[in-house]
């Protein structure tokens, strides 16, 4: 029994680690014209993968709610994907249909994912996903810059 339990636990942990960002990636693949007929005409999709050491990935999706009748559904899919990928919420503010939220996910090593979502009353809005590799020294530099700005 002991012999079975340990490999099972290792398998579960490995599976959970490999599953990171898979739901969001699936949504991005739809936008990139994978196996879906999802139209992105009214919006702008900026999808950049950087080769820099710090920022490794950037996705920015802007959807015009007046031109895209399914804008609300698309933002809902993105929010579900964020939740399914176990992003941790920083804060959220919602009034009526409009909302603002920020999330983050700690990846393997020094990898961090940051997601920001802004949706207006007309269901249009912006979704922003940044993945970077920030070491403790980088974080200290960011904190120092924030403190410097605060003291000025």
């Amino acid at each position, binding site marked *: *029994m002991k012999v079975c339990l340990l490999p099972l636990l290792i398998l579960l942990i490995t599976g959970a680690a490999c599953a990171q960002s898979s739901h969001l990636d699936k949504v991005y693949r739809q936008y990139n014209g994978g196996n879906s007929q999802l139209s992105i005409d009214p919006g702008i999709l900026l999808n950049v993968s950087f080769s820099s050491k710090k920022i490794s990935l950037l996705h920015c999706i802007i959807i015009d709610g007046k031109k895209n009748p399914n804008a609300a559904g698309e933002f809902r899919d993105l929010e579900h994907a964020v939740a399914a990928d176990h992003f941790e919420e*920083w*804060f*959220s503010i919602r009034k009526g249909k409009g909302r603002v939220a920020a999330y983050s996910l700690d990846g393997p090593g020094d990898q961090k994912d940051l997601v920001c979502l802004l949706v207006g009353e007309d269901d249009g809005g912006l979704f922003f996903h940044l993945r970077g590799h920030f070491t403790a020294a980088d974080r200290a530099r960011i904190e120092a810059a924030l403190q410097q700005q*605060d003291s000025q």
Partner: protein
Amino acid sequence: MKRIITIALMVIAFANLHAQDDAISRFFGKYLDDSRFTVVSVSPRMFRLMSKIQWDSIPSDLKQTVTRLQSFRIVSTETTPYTFYKEAYAAIDKKEYEELITVRENKDDFRFMIRATGNTIHELLMIAVDKDGFTLMCFVGDIDLDKISRLAADLDIKGMENLKNAKRK
């Protein structure tokens, strides 16, 4: 077998830790996605991040107050405020939440309730109603009433001025 039971107990304990939500999600959770309500939510992660930053312009005692907070949430609506107030007040478990202050004027009502163990306050709940709206606000963490009232005054949160001179019995 003992090991399996230990692991099972650990999983249950971990699940329970995550289940310890604030009063808003426990008693009023169904309205969190309702478009009639305005919802502001600051998560434990945000408070952890704030505690790491050395803001120079914030007084040290206020900074300490913020670092001891775990989460903060406001739910408010202008739609049928008195109906929602009645529903929310009835839903709160009075055995668990001790009433701290009640301010009543005609139909308007402000109540502050706390969940505490001994001298430590874990949760402060404000439930308020007037003709303009209904508000439910919740702080979770290690709470100092005096400092929370200062923080709330700085944030200009309506009704929190009533907390200024609150003392537990």
